């Protein structure tokens, strides 16, 4: 990845496109594939599979301090775009230019090893998040304290409720500053009080360092966290701007008041 020219620009996406061959959706197993190859050999070997464009030529910049809300219906490409920014996927066309550290969380209901305790999972997960850090103890213990899980931290992770899992995961991911934080529909698991507490922590966290990309279907959460909004539709940017206008645009598009 090449360096960004403007030091305030943390990430620049230029005309990125991601598409999948529709072929992959048709076959569920080797048996299906075999049956298609035998019954419709001409179709199977010579028909070029259709392309499903999930992200279709999107360009934007993420600058320091930005708190971007990402809105869009299911299947509009929000998660794929976030995965692409996080470096999990790579665009087939266009490029993402960044030198920033990007941390992304797409679900909070998962531990690495459910048999291990919450504390052990916290250490393991933070090792996976921060392989460069020598001593994990201060940040993990701080995150555990912030999560307010108390004595539950030493019971197996599989016994946690969804909300408890969310508390631990969200505390961990926000325990150390990063350049860009991507949160994809993850606040829903935590209770209202913890969301409030987390929102304060995130605001502090954003002030100290980078930017946040926040995906949610809840207008209130977007208002709480974000200072601008991007609306994705069929893999394209349909709106970018003010939070209230963005929410209105999104709701009008889908006939909501």
């Amino acid at each position, binding site marked *: 990845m090449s360096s960004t020219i403007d030091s305030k620009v943390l990430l620049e996406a230029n005309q990125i496109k991601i598409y999948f061959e529709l072929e992959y959706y048709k076959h569920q197993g080797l048996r299906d594939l075999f049956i298609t190859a035998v019954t419709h050999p001409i179709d199977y070997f010579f028909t070029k599979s259709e392309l499903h464009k999930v992200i279709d030529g999107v360009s934007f910049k993420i600058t320091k301090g930005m708190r971007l809300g990402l809105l869009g219906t299911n299947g509009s490409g929000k998660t794929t775009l976030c*995965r692409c920014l996080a470096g999990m996927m790579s665009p087939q066309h266009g490029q993402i230019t960044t030198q920033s550290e990007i941390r992304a*969380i797409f*679900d909070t*209901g998962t531990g*690495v*090893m459910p048999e291990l305790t919450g504390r052990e999972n916290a250490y393991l997960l933070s090792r*996976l998040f921060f392989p*460069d850090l020598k001593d994990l103890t201060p940040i993990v213990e701080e995150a555990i304290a912030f999560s307010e899980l108390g004595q539950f931290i030493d019971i197996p992770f599989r016994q946690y409720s969804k909300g408890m899992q969310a508390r631990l995961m969200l505390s961990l991911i926000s325990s150390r500053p990063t350049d860009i934080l991507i949160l994809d529909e993850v606040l829903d698991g935590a209770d209202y009080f913890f969301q409030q507490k987390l929102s304060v922590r995130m605001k502090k966290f954003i002030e100290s360092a980078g930017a946040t990309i926040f995906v949610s279907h809840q207008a209130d959460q977007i208002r709480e966290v974000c200072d601008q909004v991007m609306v994705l539709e069929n893999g394209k940017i349909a709106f970018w701007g003010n939070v209230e206008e963005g929410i209105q645009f999104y709701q009008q598009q889908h006939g909501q008041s």
Partner: protein
Amino acid sequence: MELKFFWVQVRELTIASLKSRYRKTFAGFVWVVLNPLLLFGVQSLVFKSFLKIELSNYYLFLLGGLLPWVFLSSTIQMSTPIFVTQSHLLRSFKINPMVILSAQIFDNFINFMASLFFTLIPFYYFYHKSFLGLSLLPIALLPLLIGTMALSLLLSLTNVFFRDTNFVVGFAFNLLFYLTPIFYPKNFIPPSWHWIVDYNPILYLLEPFRQLIYFDGHQFLISLMKGLFVSITLLVVGIITWKRKRNVFYHRL
């Protein structure tokens, strides 16, 4: 630096996986080491005492094939479904899937080394073999480790796209056990059937180890070269496949 971080992640995950596996077990580690030993005991009884396979130092011969085979087949069978069983984790965080796969392989490799230690050392003592040859052991195991990684990568990726791969792999390894010269030497096979062995990549991965401990290393260098060639080729194919399928991988998880 990237490689160092990758290794730190693999190491931590391997340790956690060992910890998780043996928690709430009665004898934990003992079972894992005991399993190949029992298999070895029963097979040597059947093939040496019942079927009377005529081969000098048959126990050492069998050990040289069986132990690496158990490592290879059990690792591949445990790794094939790993991306699907860990799909929740892989979809939730930015974690390199290769870290998860490598940790599974190293977890099995540690168990393999333990069973190797408990069997090979007494055998070497019993057969009055030179312990000097054992210093070449890490090199002899290289094709086996690389090849196991490559096959695990290819099959676990295939399993993401075709979920029945997991069943086929289990079945295929049952058949391959008989079709690969593990408990019988290659020269027992009639020449007209040699192609079965010649086109079996797994044999090339197992062979250097057996050459080292059983044949006193006559053909060791050649088998090592062949093994490295096959394993590295497989690994390159695996890595190219991963790079090409990376996007669809997340979509299909």
